[in-house]
């Protein structure tokens, strides 16, 4: 099968192009010589199946970052039939260097000048015919976002592949020695093919930046945007969630209970109270998760996150971090795992490690569903959003505290240079595709853990069978009492203790396991929990859930990204210790004050 590699600088719309050409069929996979997973897909092109691989965005083929090494190792260990280079047309003045480097390597390449629509708005014009002639490779103007020029690119790719032959490189770095030559070539090509206005027009981006990056208003506006986003997720998500709960309840009463009426009670219990209740309770959160990812994708795609990095860098630099660490922290609010992987853009190991130590404190979507459930059960509808917001503040506070305490151990002086892309509003198609990718990833990960988790919880709470379920004499009860000297002082009872133990595997299981432990779901479970727990206990439980180790996937990622068991252990022990300490101070403090 022929293989196409997609190459380009960051912020060029390379992924948008990849999504457009592959639809929603992409999968992550392993490649020889490369230690990280790359996104790839098999597509039908010109009557034959071809494989297309999305390489990480890089500035330079002989740079120092992990991503640049990944690209080099990929090209040294895998043959490639065709390289597609995606550039941002507005920035062709500097991005052309990457094309000339690929040309030096002798790889068969097609140049896609993306964001042609945006370049036109800036008054930048390119002569693709002339450029193609001078570079000796096909050049296509394109807008991956709106799809213009896409058919051209697609057909051209098909024609080029017909006559292509696989190329594999050895000692890539040695082929790339003449920087001066690249600069000379670049000037020559640019002079005769590209026209850039002397002064970029005062456009929408500058006007928006004057408000959003305002010296005094910038930060308050940023927190307002974040607060409103979470409010909106609640506002739109709650009715959807109630709807799903109603459907699941009705289905159970109308169809499942009559159907399973004559099954042995153990099997019926496992299927209905175990799997159906457990999985069903988690399923009610899917609408909220979808909304969360949709909103975060919009904020990310508009370019607002790099403004957040600008606004926060002054603070972050005092914590030994930088603006990128802050952006990764925000990405962690979706899921910690991709955020940890995103730290690869940092070159200094100490800065990377400090950022990775901080990211697990980000309140991820899996923890969010636990908090939404418990706040809805224990707090009034008016107080619930405030409680949730306070947990986000705790999330930031613990992250910042960790950075301050560990910044001496992980000191670095890495230069901080980050692009500030123009504001872009994603198209509806982009938003939906992006949201779908995130949700699919979440469901893949969650479904594996959830079914196994709830079955295990059900078994622990129902064996031995001659005692009342979830009572002190079941396996779960015994585990709960073993931990009680440690958990009683922070107000966590035996039932919650079981949920916490399973939460170590994945937070997605916590609510599902509570449903199994209490033998109820939805409104019934909420009412029972409200009866058994007061708000101080509930808040202490949420604090502990927020701060202790997020999940096994995060731990595995911490290990694979840091390549250090000691670092992974440090992260686990520190977060468990901090979680206990903060819950202890809160619980005992609140009780001492008479709550």
């Amino acid at each position, binding site marked *: 099968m022929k293989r196409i590699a997609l190459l380009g*600088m960051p912020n060029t719309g390379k992924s948008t192009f990849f999504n457009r050409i592959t639809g929603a069929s992409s999968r992550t996979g392993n490649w020889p010589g490369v230690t990280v997973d790359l996104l790839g897909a098999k597509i039908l092109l010109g009557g034959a199946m071809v494989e297309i691989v999305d390489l990480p965005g890089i*500035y*330079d083929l002989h*740079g*120092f970052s992990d991503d640049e090494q990944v690209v080099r190792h990929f090209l040294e260990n895998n043959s490639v039939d065709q390289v597609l280079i995606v550039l941002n047309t*507005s*920035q062709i*003045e*500097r991005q052309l*260097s990457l094309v000339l480097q690929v040309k030096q390597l002798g790889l068969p390449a097609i140049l896609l000048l993306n964001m042609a629509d945006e370049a036109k708005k*800036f008054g*930048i014009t390119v002569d693709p015919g002339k450029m193609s002639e001078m570079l000796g490779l096909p050049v296509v103007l394109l807008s991956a976002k709106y799809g213009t020029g896409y058919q051209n690119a697609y057909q051209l790719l098909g024609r080029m592949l017909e006559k292509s032959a696989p190329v594999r490189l050895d000692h890539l770095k040695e082929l790339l020695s003449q920087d001066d030559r690249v*600069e000379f070539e670049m000037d020559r090509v640019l002079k005769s093919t590209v026209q*850039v206005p002397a002064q*970029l027009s005062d456009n929408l*981006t*500058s006007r928006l*930046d004057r408000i959003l*990056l305002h*010296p*005094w208003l*910038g*930060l308050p506006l940023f927190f307002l945007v974040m607060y409103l986003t979470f409010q909106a997720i609640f506002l739109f998500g709650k009715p959807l969630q109630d709807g799903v709960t109603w459907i699941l309840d009705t289905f159970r009463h109308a169809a499942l209970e009559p159907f399973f009426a004559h099954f042995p009670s153990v099997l019926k219990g496992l299927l209905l109270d175990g799997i159906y209740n457990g999985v069903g309770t988690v399923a009610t959160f899917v609408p909220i998760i979808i909304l969360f990812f949709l909103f975060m994708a919009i904020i990310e795609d508009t370019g607002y996150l*790099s403004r957040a*990095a*600008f*606004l926060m*860098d*002054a*603070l972050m*630099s005092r914590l030994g971090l*930088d*603006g990128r660490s802050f952006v990764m922290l925000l990405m962690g609010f979706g899921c910690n795992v991709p955020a940890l992987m995103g730290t690869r853009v940092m*070159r200094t190991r100490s800065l990377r490690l400090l950022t990775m130590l901080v990211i697990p404190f980000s309140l991820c979507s899996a923890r969010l569903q636990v908090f939404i459930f418990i706040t809805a059960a224990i707090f009034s509808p008016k107080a619930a959003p405030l409680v949730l917001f306070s947990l986000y503040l705790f999330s930031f506070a613990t992250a910042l505290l960790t950075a301050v305490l560990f910044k001496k151990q992980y000191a670095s*002086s890495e*230069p*901080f*240079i*980050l*692009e*500030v*892309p*123009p504001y872009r509003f994603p198209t509806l198609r982009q938003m939906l595709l992006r949201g779908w990718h995130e949700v699919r990833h979440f469901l893949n990960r969650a479904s594996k853990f959830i079914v196994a988790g709830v079955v295990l919880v059900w078994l622990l709470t129902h064996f031995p069978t001659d005692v009342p379920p979830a009572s002190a004499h079941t396996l779960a009860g015994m585990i709960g009492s073993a931990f009680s000297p440690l958990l009683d002082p922070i107000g966590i009872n035996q039932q919650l203790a079981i949920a916490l133990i399973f939460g170590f595997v994945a937070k997605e299981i916590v609510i599902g396991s509570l449903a199994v432990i209490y033998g109820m779901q939805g409104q019934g479970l909420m009412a029972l929990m409200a009866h058994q727990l007061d708000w101080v206990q509930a808040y202490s439980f949420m604090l502990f859930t927020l701060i202790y180790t997020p999940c096994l996937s995060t731990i595995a990622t911490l290990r694979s990204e840091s390549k250090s068991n000691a670092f992974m252990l440090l992260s686990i022990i520190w977060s468990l210790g901090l979680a206990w300490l903060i819950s202890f101070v809160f619980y005992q403090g609140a009780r001492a004050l008479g709550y």
Partner: protein
Amino acid sequence: MAIVKLSTLAAGESGVIAALHAEDELYHRLAAMGFRIGKRVEILRLGRFSGPLHLRIGATDLMLRRSDANKIDVTAE
């Protein structure tokens, strides 16, 4: 026309790059972002609390810390 450090320019001012005193790694990053001798840089704004510089070079907007901007000499315009 005086040669000054990029970090001493105020918002709205601009200069032409005269020298890059950057070590290997920073030099590479700067080159990839379009920093070369003779290129014009414009300061769009300065971050609060000695935050980073928001600047424009060619058609690229980017942010750069003051400590790194210290290593770039410009001819003030």
